[in-house]
């Protein structure tokens, strides 16, 4: 109820029906002249009265050269965003349309990795934003840097624990701004309704959501209301690849880039979890398209958990593990986050653990690539021997205790640690080093691992010069080409087994490649060779 009602009550005090909330009879009775004057005065004030926020401005669709600022007000209004690089001189203006209570303003033509101050106005009245209200655009795609993300799961309880976890983060981070705020679903209990989202998400994290781009995946509790309709209405996710990645045409699953990191948000509920469904086919195209050095994936139902849920028995967990993990690991995904279980769990460096806990335990020598903690201060970090190649190890995290904890079953055989404490994760990625830290609600660091990528991706010098002829005899190759064109040899199964920039003569001895048939490619020349 805004002050407009109060005005009505003042003027039509005799006819206002509090129970019905309606004016019963506006035309009955005469209005004395003094009341008419008062009405005129008050109505004039009401006309210039600003709308007030139901959901304060929040940042969406972060990208290197664009951003969206969204909000909800109590009465339909046309608000404007003033923004600029200098907080004292907000020169640029963008107006929300249409005239509605929910609005998003898209700011385009921005500079990458740049701080922009902004304020929201209703006419000349500033509604939100102090001089320190700002956002920072994403860095250019592929650019390395020191990036930080706050990751919470199953937070929307409105219990004191939710606030404590938030305040611990604000204290550790020394403020609300990070490079991304990621929610792992169940953002508003019990049913993810519109009002629950307002109370338990927007009203709990207003300063964080107004200074950091917010991303999320859908949780089961969001799905209880019209398959997540209020959740999907509240957020604007990149369905058309606006923030990097391949267009998914749905907000249920999508991807985006931040510097040299590719983030993928999947839907473990509502959308198909089938190995041949629309989500999977999109995922394969998205993973083929990215050239980012880091890939971080998140979805609500984690593949391994023995917390308040059991990944051995519940369908969503089983299908995500069996159908999606082989694809994610094949493309070299580095870290996978989930929630759903209201506790914290974190795996070793794993690969190909697609069975249930007993199967995986029996194969632990093969599926656990590194049985250490990954903590740089104690046992040392996990090392991935290739920056991007598949099956070099992935760490799986259950981060579902940002709002409450629930009873747990015990330590899962694929996990290094399990904690029944409220908390959240801060992930930092600095060039080739990812550092994951779990803090409890008092701000105490309880778990840490580091993942280090060792090599650099090798890019082919794709010379456009036409390939000249080359000759070979036995295992000796002669190249007349003097440019940097590479010579590729592939096994008959299709695996690349050799790549070299040949300089005149190249001898492939039997130590390099055993006898057998191979394919080769040299610029536009190709064929089969039989090495004896």
């Amino acid at each position, binding site marked *: 109820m805004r002050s407009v009602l109060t005005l009505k009550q003042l003027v039509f005090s005799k006819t206002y029906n509090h129970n019905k909330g309606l004016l019963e009879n506006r035309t009955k009775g005469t209005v004395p002249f003094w009341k008419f004057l008062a009405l005129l005065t008050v109505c004039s004030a009401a006309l210039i009265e600003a709308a007030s926020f139901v959901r304060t401005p929040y940042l969406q669709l972060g990208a290197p050269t664009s951003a969206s600022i969204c909000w909800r007000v109590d009465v339909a209004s046309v608000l404007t965003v003033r923004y600029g690089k200098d907080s004292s001189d907000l020169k640029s203006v963008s107006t929300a349309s249409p005239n509605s209570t929910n609005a998003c303003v898209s700011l385009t033509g921005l500079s990458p990795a740049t701080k922009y101050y902004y304020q929201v106005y209703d006419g000349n009245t500033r509604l939100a934003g102090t001089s320190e209200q700002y956002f920072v655009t994403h860095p250019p795609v592929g650019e390395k840097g020191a990036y930080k993300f706050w990751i919470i799961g199953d937070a929307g309880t409105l219990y004191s624990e939710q606030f404590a976890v938030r305040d611990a983060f604000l204290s550790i981070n020394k403020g609300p701004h990070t490079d991304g705020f990621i929610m792992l679903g169940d953002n508003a209990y*019990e*049913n993810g309704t519109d009002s629950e989202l307002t109370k338990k998400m927007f009203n709990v994290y207003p300063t964080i959501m107004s200074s950091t781009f917010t991303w999320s995946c859908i949780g089961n509790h969001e799905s*209880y209301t019209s398959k997540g309709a209020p959740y999907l209405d509240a957020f604007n996710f990149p369905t058309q690849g606006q923030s990097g990645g*391949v*267009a998914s*045409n749905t907000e249920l699953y999508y991807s985006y880039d931040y510097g040299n990191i590719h983030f993928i948000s999947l839907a473990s509920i509502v959308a*198909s979890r089938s190995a*041949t*469904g*629309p*989500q*999977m*086919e*999109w995922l*394969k*195209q998205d993973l*083929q*398209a990215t*050239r980012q050095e880091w890939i971080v994936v998140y979805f609500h139902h984690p593949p391994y958990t023995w917390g*308040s*849920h*059991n990944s*051995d*028995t*519940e*369908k969503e967990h*089983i299908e995500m593990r069996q159908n999606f993990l082989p*694809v994610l690991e*094949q*493309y*070299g995904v580095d870290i996978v986050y989930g929630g759903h279980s209201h506790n914290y769990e974190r795996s070793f460096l794993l690969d190909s653990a697609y069975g249930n806990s007993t199967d995986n335990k029996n194969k632990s020598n093969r599926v656990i690539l590194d049985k250490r903690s990954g903590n740089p201060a104690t046992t040392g970090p996990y090392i991935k021997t*290739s920056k*991007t*190649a*598949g*099956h*070099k190890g992935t760490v799986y995290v259950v981060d579902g205790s940002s709002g409450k904890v629930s*009873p747990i*079953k015990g330590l899962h055989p694929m996990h290094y640690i399990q904690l029944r404490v409220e908390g959240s994760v801060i992930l930092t990625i600095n060039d080739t080093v990812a550092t994951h830290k779990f803090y409890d609600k008092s701000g105490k660091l309880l778990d840490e691992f580091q993942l280090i990528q060792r*090599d650099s*991706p*090798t*890019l*082919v010098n*794709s010379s456009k010069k036409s390939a000249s002829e080359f000759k070979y005899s036995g295992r000796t190759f002669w190249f007349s080409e003097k440019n940097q064109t*590479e010579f*590729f040899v*592939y096994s*008959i*199964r*299709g*695996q*690349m087994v050799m*790549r070299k920039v040949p300089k005149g003569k190249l001898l492939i001895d039997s130590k390099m490649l055993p006898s057998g048939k191979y*394919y080769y*490619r040299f610029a*536009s020349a*190709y*064929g*089969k060779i039989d090495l004896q």
Partner: protein
Amino acid sequence: MNYFRIQKTFLFVYLLGSTLPFAHPRPSVTLNRLDSIIKHNPSALTVRAERSWLELSNGHAGPSVLEDVVWLSRYPEWVPTADRLHAHYLFLQGKFDSARIMLYTNIESPLKNSPDQFQLLAKLELSMLDTNAALAIWKRAWNARHEEGDLMEFINLHRAHKSTSLELLRDGFHRHPKSPGVCKVIFEAAMSNGTEEGLEIGLIVSSHALDTWPKSSDWRLRNAQALFRKEKYFEVEAVLLDGLKILDESSRFNGENSFATDIRKDMLELLVTNNLQTNKQKSKQ
């Protein structure tokens, strides 16, 4: 006669494998929690619905589902949910005739014709070996919502039944040109159709896919396969060499077990086969 019997047996085994409900272990931790909530508050209808969906989605039709259905049916706004749950319950109980009657009623009602009801009814018809009825259900689902998942199921069922509606492929492509999943099933169905028209659709879809997903190596392979069938050998070579460059340029695609290994193998094989055709064409010229 024998051939017909073999075909029928194959179809039966295929359908049996793809349609019978697979029971997962009971998710006891979550269900115990939900049971406990319901015990303290029997009219927690949202929780009852959650409990039943969880039971049914894991292939269990225990007494608690029936109890929830009875409870939910007492509240008019929950009747559609109760009826949908009841249909699943009957199906899992093996009461196919009752389930079928209920499902046909449900898909007629705007409040109950949710995707799960269409899917369940199609499954039921398949388990009765009535593929035509299952195709008719998918057709209704597709016409009602034009949802990409329904279309993929619909086309795949057509393929399993060794039939293809080229009109459906065109309509599906027209409605979901940016869905990798839809494009893939349309391409596969079109190419296996064995007609010039089907091949034309395969070529259009794969060319469009290359424009839409320019870094995709699997779509390069599919496009090259369509071009090869159209005997456009010189274009095949260009597309495949481009595809190999994409795969070779990133170390993500060069691991031992990389997804790219299979694609690269198919590309190289096609390239070498295509080269023979190119040489033949050159010699003719």
